């Protein structure tokens, strides 16, 4: 009972009234006179503590300049170089347009009729291109090439599945490499090439020169009709796409490219032609919450990126 708060407050009446109004100190290790506060402070050597989490990216230009001046730094040389690669073209030139329904659509349809006319025109061009390829590579044979192409196609996919970057580079051109690797980070891919339903065949061939007349690239489009199996798992081993037990028939038009003028050039996968009539992609198995709609900001018209090597 002696420790009761009422007992303590009750004793306050014995104190003089002024004592309650005055601030009182609990610290006894410091001098009560604040004039020594400054002297106490001076005991510590003043150093500038750095803020490591300062958001330098969003600092105003002037502030950055000021900071660099304080430290006597010169601004760095801006990185204006644009690297580009000369052993592969930046796109597919005069791309093959797969006939509607893979050439099995009704002859009456207008697009089909147009395509048949165009086909004749293009066929002769393809012949010329193949002749050009033969001038560089005497042993070139379309039948033999189809077999090699399929081999390259399978190897490219296998190296992607095995996450073997160095092997992938030998089967895939520099343009197709990022397209292959896109979205594959942190995922486990299981892919199987089951069988070829139809023998692959060359449907299109083109040659072009880049920069100089002698610098020639060849591109050949091969049609593959195969049966494959694909399943993609995320980082935690949960199924994202495809199925382990389901085989699918795949019709693909794959573009292969070779730097013909280069003695050591190889045929490599360069791209894929996706026709307009291709069936829509399967939706992702991954469900997500709909993002909240943001207020639309009028976009600035950015100048479109020009490809490194102009398409011809």
């Amino acid at each position, binding site marked *: 009972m002696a420790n009761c708060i009422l007992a303590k407050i009750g004793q306050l009446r014995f104190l003089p009234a002024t004592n309650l109004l005055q601030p009182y100190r609990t610290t006894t290790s410091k001098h009560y006179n604040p004039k020594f506060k400054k002297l106490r402070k*001076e*005991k*510590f*050597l003043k*150093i*500038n*503590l*750095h*803020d*490591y*989490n300062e958001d*330098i*990216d969003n600092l105003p230009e002037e502030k*950055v300049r000021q*900071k*660099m001046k304080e*430290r006597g*730094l010169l601004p*760095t040389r*801006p*990185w204006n170089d644009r690297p580009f690669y000369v052993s592969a073209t930046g796109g597919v030139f005069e791309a093959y347009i797969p006939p509607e329904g893979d050439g099995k659509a009704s002859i009456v349809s207008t697009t089909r009729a147009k395509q048949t006319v165009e086909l004749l025109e293009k066929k002769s061009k393809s012949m010329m291109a193949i002749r050009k390829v033969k001038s560089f590579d005497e042993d070139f044979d379309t039948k033999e090439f189809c077999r090699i192409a399929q081999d390259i196609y399978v190897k490219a996919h296998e190296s992607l599945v095995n996450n073997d970057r160095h092997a992938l580079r030998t089967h895939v051109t520099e343009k197709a490499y990022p397209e292959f690797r896109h979205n594959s980070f*942190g*995922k*486990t891919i*299981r892919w199987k090439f089951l069988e070829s339903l139809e023998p692959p065949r060359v449907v299109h061939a083109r040659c072009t020169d880049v920069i100089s007349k002698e610098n020639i690239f060849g591109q050949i489009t091969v049609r593959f009709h195969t049966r494959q199996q694909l*399943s993609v*798992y*995320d*980082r*935690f*081993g*949960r*199924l*994202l796409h495809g199925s382990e037990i389901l085989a699918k028939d795949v019709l693909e038009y794959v573009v292969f490219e070779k730097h013909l003028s280069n003695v050591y050039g190889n045929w490599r996968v360069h791209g894929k032609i996706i026709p307009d009539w291709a069936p829509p992609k399967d939706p992702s198995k*991954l*469900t*997500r*919450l709909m993002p909240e709609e943001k207020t639309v900001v009028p976009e600035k018209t950015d100048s479109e990126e020009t490809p490194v090597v102009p398409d011809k």
Partner: protein
Amino acid sequence: MNQLLKNIYLATFRINTTQNLHTTIPVTAWSKSDVPKSFLKFNKKIYPPQDPSEEPRPAYVCHQKTNFKYSPDKLWYIASFVRGMTVDEAIKQLSFVNKKGAGLVKEAILEAQELAVTKHNVEFRSNLWIAESFSGKGVVIKGIRRHARGRLGEVRYQYSHYFVRLEEGKPPVDYYKRNPLTPQEQLDKWLEQMRKRKITNSF
């Protein structure tokens, strides 16, 4: 460009703080950062695919906040406070903790939550709990203070790191095992113990 500036800026700072013999800059522009890396490596770990019959593995995300000016010892209390809470609960609780570190921890958790949703295939941002949360010691800058009779004292200006791992799913019921047994269970356990007794050298 800005990254480069940052590097140089940080590098020169390092020179200013640690009194180096050499005062040249160019080499240090590419100096190593002293930010911990090993914790974030868990974000890159790839687990083997699961069977459809198996229970899907919960997603998780590791996140860290580094080198902020706060004592790691003080931070530890806040770090252990939020452990085993759901993300929403932790944020609610932290907003009532009147400490500098609470704000930093809250910020880290919110960042981790955002990462989980955008990068680590977590569908619902509330369906996360704090599986790991701990503090670490960052850069320590040593200062000097005067003592009487021409003596010196060392002052430590400590920086600290905060690490957090959010896991998908519901948190465990009793993370800290504060009250592991209900009264009935305690009684049962006691009874069990009693019945297990054996008089030595008897049948």
